[in-house]
């Protein structure tokens, strides 16, 4: 059993990883913002844009019940392909997984939390294959068009585990501040 802070249900965290300033690397924050706008969840579900936290991830995974991570995934697949991997996939692929720029990433953080006895009970990664991660680029149309599929997968993963998650009656407009340029809004059509 996980330790909880105040005795309520252990938190569920839906987190987006990636840098919003770098094109498709910003898939994670984009996906969780879209998720927040389309679905509403119980009070124990935190939806967090964590950027590129490296080992600082530990503080956000600490003692959670379930963590769903949205992130860009490198694979020999078409850009926009959605991957869903669970923790066993991660562990089995241990030698083949790598965060390109943070050595201390998800796998290391999980191992560390597990040893300390405060790892999340479950973890799922909803990934998308990026097309381009250039500075100041918008998210590519390939990744953008896969976003709804990724978002619905996040909702499905929560529902399958009995976690409160419902489509909103009226969707909330997304706050994609990073898509704003000095010339005005450049927000993608969603």
């Amino acid at each position, binding site marked *: 059993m996980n330790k909880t802070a105040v005795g309520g249900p252990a938190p569920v965290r839906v987190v987006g990883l990636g840098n919003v300033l770098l094109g498709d690397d910003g898939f994670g924050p984009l996906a969780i913002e879209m998720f927040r706008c389309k679905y509403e969840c119980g009070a124990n579900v935190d939806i967090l*844009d964590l950027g590129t936290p490296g080992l600082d991830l530990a503080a956000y995974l600490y003692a959670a019940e379930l963590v769903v991570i949205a992130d860009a995934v*490198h694979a020999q697949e078409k850009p926009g392909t959605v991957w869903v991997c669970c923790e066993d996939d991660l562990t089995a692929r241990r030698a083949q997984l790598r965060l390109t720029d*943070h050595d201390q990433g998800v796998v290391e953080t999980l191992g560390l939390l597990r040893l300390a006895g405060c790892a999340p009970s479950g973890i799922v990664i909803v990934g998308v294959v990026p097309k381009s991660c250039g500075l100041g680029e918008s998210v590519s149309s390939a990744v953008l068009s896969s976003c709804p599929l990724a978002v619905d997968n996040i909702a499905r993963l929560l529902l399958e585990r009995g976690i409160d998650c419902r489509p909103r009656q009226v969707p909330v407009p997304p706050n994609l501040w990073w898509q704003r340029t000095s010339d005005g809004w450049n927000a993608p059509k969603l």
Partner: protein
Amino acid sequence: MARVSIDPVTRIEGHLRIDVEVDGGAVQQAWASCTMWRGIETILLGRDPREGWVFAQRFCGVCTTVHAMASVRAVEDALQLEIPPNAQYIRNLILIGHALHDHIVHFYQLSALDWVDITTIPKANPGRAASIAGNVSAWPGNSQRALEEVQNKVTGLIGSGQLGIFSHGYWSHPAMRLSPELNLILFAHYLQALEFQRKSCQVVGILGGKTPHIQNLAVGGVMNAINLNSLATMNMDRLGMLQSLLQELVPFVQQAYFVDACLLAASYPEWFRYGRGVANYLAVPDLPVDAKATKFDLPGGVIVNGNLGSLHRIQNWRDQGIRAAVAEDVTHAWYQGEGAQRPWQGKTAPDYTDFRENGKYTWVKAPRYNSQPMQVGPLANVLVGYASGHPLTRKWTDNAFNRILSFQGSTVTPEALQSTMGRYLARAIRSAMLSELALQHWQLLTDNILKGDDTIYNPPQFPQHEVEGVGLHEAPRGTLSHWVVIDKGAFSNYQAVVPTTWNASPRDEKGVPGPYESSLLANPVADPAKPLEVLRTVHSFDPCMACACHTFDVNGREIAQVKVL
């Protein structure tokens, strides 16, 4: 002569390559190379300075807060805009929370395993370990039971035959010398540290609205509405939560982290002799205690040639010296142009070649202060404070020296702090200072609010002519400065001179190497295939190369490569 190339250096934030030439068991030459482009500032050109900080805090994934803070300070400096005392204290508490998080993560997760050999832990006697730890600290996590639990976990991990996340350590290296009991004590705190990292994030989150990427800043102050009668704002409840978190965090810093750093220093005294490198130090004043930012709780200044008597104080952020002294040289960096430019005139136009040790070899520019390389970071912070006679710095530095003397009988001086071990110790000294200041700044904020002051913001006014500003912050890794030019209410130039740029600086046009490079000279290397000693010195700086990109790779590229050429 062996050429060793470590690419990437692991257990750091970001991407760094170190090349060293080893002869006679010691480093003869060294090159530091950042293998990722660092020109993210260009994204800010033309933008509204009031929202610059929102973008600036995405420069790096780890040090988000510090870039947000330097950005608002730069704009406020350009506008000569004061911020209310409440805003100073709220910002200071955020900065302290962030710094404590950073320093704890660095000491335990990013560097302890260069010194702590976990494979000896099954041999430790937990009773003896508890008594060693109990003699030097009142930390409740040192009980025999707590240590036995950790020992069982490690024994289980080793017994499983799979070290998992620890499989890349240089275990049983001849330079690993702690007793099994000390290894057990430090590793127990390594695991306990996770809980306190979380608490320091919560401090930032309560004040910043969210962490990472705080939401409460504004050019001119903060957006934390203060109303003691409202549930939704900064009220006594929230101040109370903040105080309890700080009261839990402080003992870990003072009784576990600080004591561990002293134990480590006492156990590896020879590391006070290596890694001195560039002995010019720069620290800027921080944690202002008044609206005009004339008084600071952390002093700033410049020390040259390792001589504490040479201290030149930087009194405040309007100091003209630093504005005139800083320039960046691109002779050996992958940018167009030659020689040095002041940041306000700085350009970031890439000019990539391969790694050429006599030509261009890194994405990091070479910042210089009056043409000299400078070392920045907690060591600079502590030396400047010590040389200034700053009571809080003296108190914790002397406390560390006395502890080391009582543990092992070896004398440490401010002179000896200028070393690889000195950087680890200085970071712990700074953390202890900050833990004390955290409670003081909480009190300043609470007293000011109870006095009836609920001001949080002074609105900025942008002139039609061009103005320049610099935002200074003594960040966890050292002096950070954002240099902005604002024209008609938009950024026309933006340059960030970050701590790791100072420390990971390449050679300049005169061929003078930067702090990482020169600190590695004469560093011992017992086995070039396992360059643990090189990592100790590099990690002592807490490297943070711009952590700009972050993706999974499912194709099986190597995790790290140590090439012996």
